[in-house]
């Protein structure tokens, strides 16, 4: 699984948020604050997706307006230039007026859509700003649910995602509407229909071109292969001349390989060309589309769940986690998590971190470790409690060896 560094999205939105959270005058100066700021900086996707969606809606509305306006203006100039009879002129002008009224309606709808999306962006910024030391556990809980919804959307479990969002009032904080757009394309691709996908590519042509995306080319190739599969060779050649030729300059090798299928036919046994006819090619197209889609909206290429789990499991993984007496508070005591963590690296520490076997608390300078004569170590707090209850006798819970509190030796560990 490849993890990419989170896209360095709009830094202008990223830093003011972090600064805002840190400079909040009413927040208590707790040690959690820098950690909170760091965790907020990981939320690029959270802010970028509604913003990109908003930009897209604005652009689409703008284009529609331009189109209608230029049509109306040219209609007016035509009417001025042409020699119309009074009735014809009135009719012509009436049609232009109704066209303008239609435009007004569309503008109103477009404005409403834009307003809703701006509100969504605002809601997300507010949510990030609302994170502070008081409601931290609740905020973390919301984050966990957001991560789960993101995973479900990416794996195409749209209904479950919708249900989870509704139960927890997360609708503004998750991108279900954005993924509805993807759903149409993905469903069509799974039914071996490239039309919606091509329409999507046409809609987003400038940005796909900027990122040098091959998606349109691959969609066209697949259509070509389907034509060959149906043995419509003449149509296939015409198709190739029209749609595949422009891509020849940049992707000649691939083009040549696919064009060769004209010669090999759909039931060929030759391995290089057999693979092109397999149904798996459609799954590959779906994956490609998902990647381009996520890139376009500024989302991470892997689901957030995978990223956080990999980092978390690796940070928690120690050789002791795989032993039988691993405490059940450690997630790695569970079989499922252990299997997930197997290929991941072990955690690294530069300083000793010691945990008392009895109290499960950290043994540091305030609660130093003490050593029994047989080498077993426990925290001062635990040993003092034990001595109080047992008249100064210490019994090691693991080895059963007994000694007096006075026989203990302090260990100095930096």
């Amino acid at each position: 699984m490849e993890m990419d560094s989170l896209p360095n999205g709009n830094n202008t939105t990223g830093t003011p948020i972090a600064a805002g959270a840190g400079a909040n005058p009413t927040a208590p100066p707790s040690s959690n604050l820098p950690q909170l700021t760091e965790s907020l900086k990981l939320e690029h996707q959270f802010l970028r997706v509604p913003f990109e969606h908003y930009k897209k809606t604005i652009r689409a509305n703008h284009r529609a307006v331009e189109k209608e306006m230029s049509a109306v203006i040219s209609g007016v100039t035509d009417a001025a230039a042409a020699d119309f009879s009074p009735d014809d002129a009135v009719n012509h002008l009436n049609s232009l007026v109704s066209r303008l009224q239609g435009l007004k309606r569309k503008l109103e709808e477009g404005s409403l859509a834009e307003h809703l999306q701006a509100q969504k962006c605002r809601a997300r910024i507010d949510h990030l700003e609302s994170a502070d030391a008081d409601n931290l556990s609740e905020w973390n809980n919301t984050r966990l649910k957001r991560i789960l919804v993101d995973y479900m959307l990416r794996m195409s479990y749209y209904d479950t995602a919708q249900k989870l969002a509704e139960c927890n009032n997360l609708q503004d904080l998750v991108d279900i509407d954005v993924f509805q757009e993807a759903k149409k394309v993905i469903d069509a691709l799974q039914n071996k229909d490239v039309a919606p996908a091509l329409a999507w590519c046409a809609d987003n042509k400038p940005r796909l071109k900027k990122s040098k995306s091959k998606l349109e080319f691959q969609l066209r190739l697949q259509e070509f292969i389907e034509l060959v599969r149906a043995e419509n060779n003449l149509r296939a050649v015409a198709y190739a001349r029209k749609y595949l030729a422009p891509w020849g300059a940049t992707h000649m090798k691939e083009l040549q390989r696919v064009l060769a299928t004209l010669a090999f036919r759909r039931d060929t046994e030759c391995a290089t060309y057999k693979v092109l006819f397999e149904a798996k090619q459609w799954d590959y197209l779906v994956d490609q589309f998902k990647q381009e889609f996520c890139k376009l909206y500024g989302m991470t290429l892997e689901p957030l769940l995978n990223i956080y789990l990999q980092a978390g499991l690796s940070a928690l993984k120690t050789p002791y986690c795989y032993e039988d007496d691993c405490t059940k508070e450690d997630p790695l005591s569970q079989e499922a998590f252990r299997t997930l963590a197997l290929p991941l690296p072990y955690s690294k520490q530069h300083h000793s971190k010691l945990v008392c076997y009895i109290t499960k608390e950290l043994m540091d300078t305030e609660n130093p470790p003490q050593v029994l004569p047989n080498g077993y170590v426990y925290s001062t707090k635990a040993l003092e409690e034990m001595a109080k209850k047992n008249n100064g006798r210490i019994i090691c819970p693991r080895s059963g060896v007994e000694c007096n509190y006075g026989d203990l030796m302090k260990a100095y560990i930096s």
Partner: protein
Amino acid sequence: MKSPFLEMYQILEAMKNQDLEPALKWATSNSDKLAQSGSDIVLKLHSMQFVKILQNGSRDEALHYARTYLSPFASSHIADIQKLMGSLLWTGKLDSSPYHALLSPSNWDRLAEELKRQFCNLLGQSYNSPLSVTISAGVQALPPLLKFMNVMVGKKQEWQTMNQLPVPVELDSELQFHSIFVCPVSKEQATEDNPPMLMSCGHVLCKQSISKMSKNGSKLFKCPYCPFDVDAALCKQLYF
């Protein structure tokens, strides 16, 4: 797996409405297991019920309740029971008494949390869901990892394929489940083959560092922290 948790949430719901019946029922049916794990939640639940009865103003009922349910704990928790008995004097007027702290709502919150903890303990489950613990660890681990990746942009090695993380990740103390000893001399983590050893001065080094510094146990060496002469043969292995 689902039904025990449903039961737990039902008990907690009832407690939110200050109704302790389901909780008491659960506690009495599991009293021996709870006693085994060393928890005093049964006493706490009965004390809370006692305070509730007191507030309703019936001293006799409260006394009777105490005699039935609090007396078994007399030997082990005499101090707590004495406090409760003192509050008998202010039946019905607890808020103006020195014992008004018994009425504070945070007691209910703490009791609910303790009950949740013990319930999960009896089920053999962790208190926090493993998923949320792992995600919290991930949130803390990602910033240093991302910084590393931004620095190492040239080198193509993916961190997931390494044997050990390339950067140290400092986790909160709640996420520290195992003792990790790092030798201050070699900066290596202790393993079964290379355990931590206690020197007679009280400082701890790993076995390999000690044998290196003492030239395989042949000579005395100075502890790097204090000017104490250390004999490798006198070093004791530690078990955290």
